[in-house]
């Protein structure tokens, strides 16, 4: 992992007119940013476009980068806000239910030699991705930032420039909606492995399918 000092050095070189240095920054962070872009947009090409636009905008606004956060965090914020921008929201092509490339992360290794499990996993991924695509953009972004990238509420709020309470409510509504969207799939395909839960949550003895049901908010 390259440290922030190196990033700052490269940024200083960019400001001095050596744009090649920015290429090094792109190469350094494109791999980390791409999966998030992919989950935000739902298509490979939109993800590549989004990522490219994010890097370009970052370069154009490089003078506004003062090092309060890491360069990665800065570009990440640019990217998620670009994904939410009005211009992109108007694009009809944003978020298609198209097949994404097959997973290439280490989690796949468990499926080696088990084609059925691999297919199940891919179908499950496709179902989740389709469900993500049906969320409102501001909900989708919060879900991806929280669940996929593991960010804290405060970090999400800072990146999106919204109150923490807004993050919390958007996230909860998005989860409820996702729960409903995934219910059909889960009724047909119950999870193969028991999910882990936080230490402070009692593990249920049964694993019923995800079913959307309206609960009274008060009791």
């Amino acid at each position, binding site marked *: 992992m390259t440290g922030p000092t190196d990033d700052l050095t490269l940024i200083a070189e960019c400001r001095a007119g050596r744009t090649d240095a920015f*290429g090094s920054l792109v190469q350094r962070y494109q791999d980390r940013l791409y999966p998030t872009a992919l989950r935000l947009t739902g298509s490979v090409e939109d993800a590549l476009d989004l990522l490219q636009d994010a890097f370009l905008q970052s370069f154009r606004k490089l003078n506004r980068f003062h090092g309060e956060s890491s360069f990665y965090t800065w570009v990440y914020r640019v990217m998620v806000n670009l994904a939410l921008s009005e211009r992109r929201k108007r694009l009809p092509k944003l978020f*298609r239910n198209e097949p994404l490339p097959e997973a*290439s992360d280490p989690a*796949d290794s468990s499926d080696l030699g088990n084609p059925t499990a691999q297919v199940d996993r891919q179908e499950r991924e496709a179902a989740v991705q389709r469900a993500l695509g049906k969320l409102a953009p501001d909900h989708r972004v919060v879900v991806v930032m929280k669940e996929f990238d593991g960010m804290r509420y405060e970090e999400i709020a800072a990146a999106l420039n919204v109150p923490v309470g807004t993050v919390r409510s958007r996230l909860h509504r998005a989860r409820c909606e996702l729960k409903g969207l*995934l219910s059909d799939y889960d009724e047909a395909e119950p999870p193969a492995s028991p999910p882990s839960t936080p230490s402070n*949550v009692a593990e249920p003895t049964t694993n019923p399918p995800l079913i959307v049901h309206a609960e009274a908010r*008060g009791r």
Partner: protein
Amino acid sequence: MIFDDTLLSAHLDDELSGAVREAVEAAIAADPALAERLRLLGETKRAVSSLSRPAIGVDLAGAVLNRIERDRTAANRRPYYWIATAASLLFALAIWVQPLELGHPPKNGQDVVVTNVPTPHVETAKDETVAPVEPVGPPVIAEVKYTEPMPDANLHARDQMLQMLDRPGVRRIVIVVDAIDPAARASVNDALMLLPRKNPEFTNVKLAQGIVLDPTYPGEAEVFATVMDWPERRQLLDKLEDEFKTVIDQTVVDPHVGLQLADMSGVQMGVGRRAAGLGQGPEQEKLAIRRQPHQPEVFPPDPPARVRGNAVVQAPSGFVGPPVSTRTNEGAVPVIVWLTTRSKPAIH
């Protein structure tokens, strides 16, 4: 007590502290319904967090630096007003889309179903049928003539085409240059030829006289055809944008024009039907392409590539472009997608 359900999410994320956390824990312990809701939220959370993190597969640095350089060059140019009668460029991107029914490859004159539903892996894995791939092909002179007014745009077809446009992988690209200004046409040609592509050959197609691709800009047209992957397509669009200072909009393929292009590509455009594998349901209006009953005899077709299950398609003899994978939805049937660029060349 009125329980705010958002607290459940916050609790799940370990974002509560102090008295609130204790109160929520107590409420959950006392109410099985709350505990169940928390469990379901946890499953949803894990569904997203367990999504894979695919590798990017391309190096964006070069493309980003090129854009930066173009920005810089553009900033140095003196702003100028556009010429009203500038050239227009029509880009038709013909995508290779694999029909769901691999077991029933298209035959001459038969409808081919084109759908944006992902091909089930199980279905393709067990399918051993060989489907032909549209040849990249030498030029074919279009003989289609028509005098009827062009019908209105079909927005539904447009949406479908846009969906197909962004599928990953190699696409068949048909670029129609309908430019009044010969210099603009030459510039397009130069832009195409300067692309650092693996397959350096564009097929140059001359449209027959009398064919008007765009009634607003009647004139001769040149057509180029090739195959490209995403970075190449991006480079091409960047280069043309830079060259002509254009705003590229995706627009509707006029059915008549589509037919002409289809003729040139040895395919026809028609209405798709619902794939049998999708089960019962209403027929869908799809923009589909089917093979022409008769291939023009003037230009012999390239040897067809072959699709076998999930295997990588073998390229036709002499073709050195990137391979076509059925897993990324390329296949036997090209679908024409149309981009229109109103080119307004800058005067330096």
